[in-house]
């Protein structure tokens, strides 16, 4: 399990010029071979991105008072961005009831969903993964059962929970047994937020558990045996062995889920339709598209930057090594070995 195995491919000996990199011909050939992919990626990723930014710099069509017809708005500069960020509707502050006014509440509620759901999912997911990783009778059944919610489309999940959270629904009946008054699950500010979090956790914990389970299964059994021989307690084993060894898949799972919740749309759209202040950022974009898509482009660009920045933070500081960069130098050897058990394990089993 040393990092050396992963940095030094066995073919090094046969190609002595490796250190000088590719020769000119090979470079050109390589470029040619990846060119179609690059063009393709530019077409499906770069183009829409740039186009959205370009659209966001134009004004939405306005009404010509004389004819009653719409006319193109022309260049807007950054006014579409200030509209959202500084809450400016024309010259005045956006009054309550406009979409602009809902930007910050949508931002906070989306971040609230993100933090709370991901934390709960992380805890539950870890627990489920540990259960699924154990050897016991009926393990296959438990694994299948845990995965069921993940297999149901979100729109269907949202409808199911809508029935559960209806005023005459089972949720209110159940809390009635413990003496709590019936709640307005889709309209009350706090109840609605928790309705969404409950439904989201129910649906996506299996995903988290699955990713963590994949990491757990790569931890070799002998380290646990060694820990047992050294007399480590269960808690110590978990903290000192399991956690560090699944750190990378764990962080990747957290990253995926964080980005996922930050663009949450379908669940709140169907479950509460924004009732109780649960309009998420993505819902705001969809509503804005009906009113003018230049402003909506600006809003989606803001969301894109926000999500991209979060992803950057995770990869840079959170250790979510999605790119699987090779270890940088020999000095970092021990850390790299622990930090990247998946890669290290893959090469060691392959050798």
């Amino acid at each position, binding site marked *: 399990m040393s990092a050396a195995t992963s940095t030094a491919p066995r073919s090094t000996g046969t190609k002595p010029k490796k250190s000088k990199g590719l020769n000119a011909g090979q470079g050109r050939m390589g470029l040619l071979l990846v*060119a179609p992919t690059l*063009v393709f990626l530019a*077409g499906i990723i770069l183009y829409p991105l740039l*186009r959205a930014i370009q659209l966001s710099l134009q004004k939405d069509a306005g009404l010509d008072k004389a004819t009653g017809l719409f006319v193109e708005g022309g260049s807007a500069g950054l006014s579409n961005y200030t509209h959202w960020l500084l809450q400016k509707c024309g010259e005045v502050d956006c*009054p309550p*009831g406009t979409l602009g006014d809902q930007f910050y509440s949508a931002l906070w509620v989306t971040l609230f969903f993100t933090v709370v759901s991901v934390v709960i999912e992380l805890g539950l997911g870890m627990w489920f993964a540990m259960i699924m990783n154990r050897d016991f009778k009926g393990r296959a059944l438990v694994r299948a059962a845990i995965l069921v919610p993940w297999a149901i489309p979100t729109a269907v999940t949202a409808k199911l929970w809508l029935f559960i959270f209806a005023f005459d629904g089972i949720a209110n009946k159940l809390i009635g047994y413990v003496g709590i008054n019936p709640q307005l699950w889709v309209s009350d500010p706090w109840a609605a937020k928790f309705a969404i979090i409950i439904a989201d956790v129910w649906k996506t914990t299996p995903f988290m558990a699955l990713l963590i389970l994949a990491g757990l299964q790569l931890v070799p059994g002998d380290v646990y045996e060694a820990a047992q021989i050294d007399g480590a307690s269960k808690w110590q084993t978990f903290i000192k062995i399991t956690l560090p060894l699944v750190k990378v898949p764990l962080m990747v799972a957290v990253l995926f889920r964080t980005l996922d919740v930050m663009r949450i749309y379908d669940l709140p759209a169907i479950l509460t339709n924004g009732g109780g202040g649960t309009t998420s950022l993505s819902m705001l974009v969809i509503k804005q598209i*009906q*009113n003018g898509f230049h402003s909506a482009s600006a809003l989606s660009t803001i969301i894109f930057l926000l999500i991209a920045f979060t992803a950057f933070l995770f990869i840079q500081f959170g250790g979510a090594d999605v790119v699987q960069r090779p270890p940088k130098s020999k000095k970092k050897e021990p850390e790299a070995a622990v930090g990247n058990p998946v890669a290290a394990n893959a090469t060691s089993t392959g050798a």
Partner: protein
Amino acid sequence: MALRMHKRRTLTVLTGAVAVALVASACGGGDNTKSTDTGAAARGPITYVQGKDNSNLLGPMAEKWNAAHPTEKVTVKEQSDQANQQHDDLVQHFQAKDPSYDVVSVDVVWTAEFAAKGWLVPLKDKMALPTTGFLEPTVKAATYNKTLYAAPTSSDGAMLYYRSDLVKTPPKTIDEMWGMCSIAKQNGMDCFAGQFAKYEGGTCNATEWMNAYGAKVVDDAGKPTVDSPEAAKGLQELADHYKNGDIPKQAITYQEEQSRASFQNGKLLFLRNWPYVYNLASTDASSKVKGKFAVAPLPGVSGPGTSTLGGHMAAISTYSKYKATALDFLKFLTSEEQQKTNMEKGSLAPVIESIYTDPALVAKYPYLPVLKESISNAVSRPVTPFYPAVSEAISTNFFAAIQGQKTPQAAVKDMQAAMVAAG
């Protein structure tokens, strides 16, 4: 080797160029199909686009038209059953200047937006459509900037459903209705509910209550005038009776179906809803109120109240190639015969006044006279090209006001400001 290499490179460059060209043409698509105003007299096959047809009306309708017009046949395209999706589908086709959408069915609230975008053919001069005998509010809703842009094809108005076994004569005024809430209490029921959730239905209900007290959401020129004591009074009334329990707590989660369920399960004395409830509540196997309910016009301050106008219209796309045929098709859709068929087969409220008193139809649909009164007194939702923003302004502030998070005075003030900001 060098040759093969060269060939390969050419190939790759070509592939790349093709890919770029494809991308470029994808975003420039539609620019070469410039619309022209020709075609006003042209005839030929047309397409009619409408939302999902739940009652199998479209097929027979098209057959009938096609039999009479063998050289100008109509093809029917059905959209989804979701209003938002229908709206977005139309917008996309209009933006692409698609000539294959000749006649489109539009919801009353979209007319102004589509007309202002220049997507609908104004029905005047050579393209004029006679509207004598039509219910006035339906024509008004199809009019933008003093020009008729669409032919009303079906209408809709809200009615008050009440339990005829518990209430002998329905309340004529709002105060009478609140007075009868003691009957609901004695029977362990809720008194009154409409659709008070935060969505388009909330806008309809809020507008009705504000209109009932004499408020005008927008004036005739389309300028917002909702910041008035009358509008505040309407919201105040709702908020007060939500607080004292005449309107049940859960009513702010009600859309059409939840409120119907409550009424059908015998838990609600008075329900404000659309005509579709009548058939379901009388025939649904699970309905507990079969034969125990009737309808009345919505109560007002001193007499019948004002309903919000619903319904659909048919309009001709600016990009249609065969506008003369399209106009004939609009006349066909609004003909008395077709309107009657729609009522009989699909319970679609007609736009022609005389049909509501047809004895055969009234025998089958006892609610028709009430519905006629409802629609005749109906007030259209604001006819404005910025309807989605206006609706958001109304429903958001109404939702805050009914729960007492905001005073009615502040709510109508914010509604006004938000509508002004919208355009």
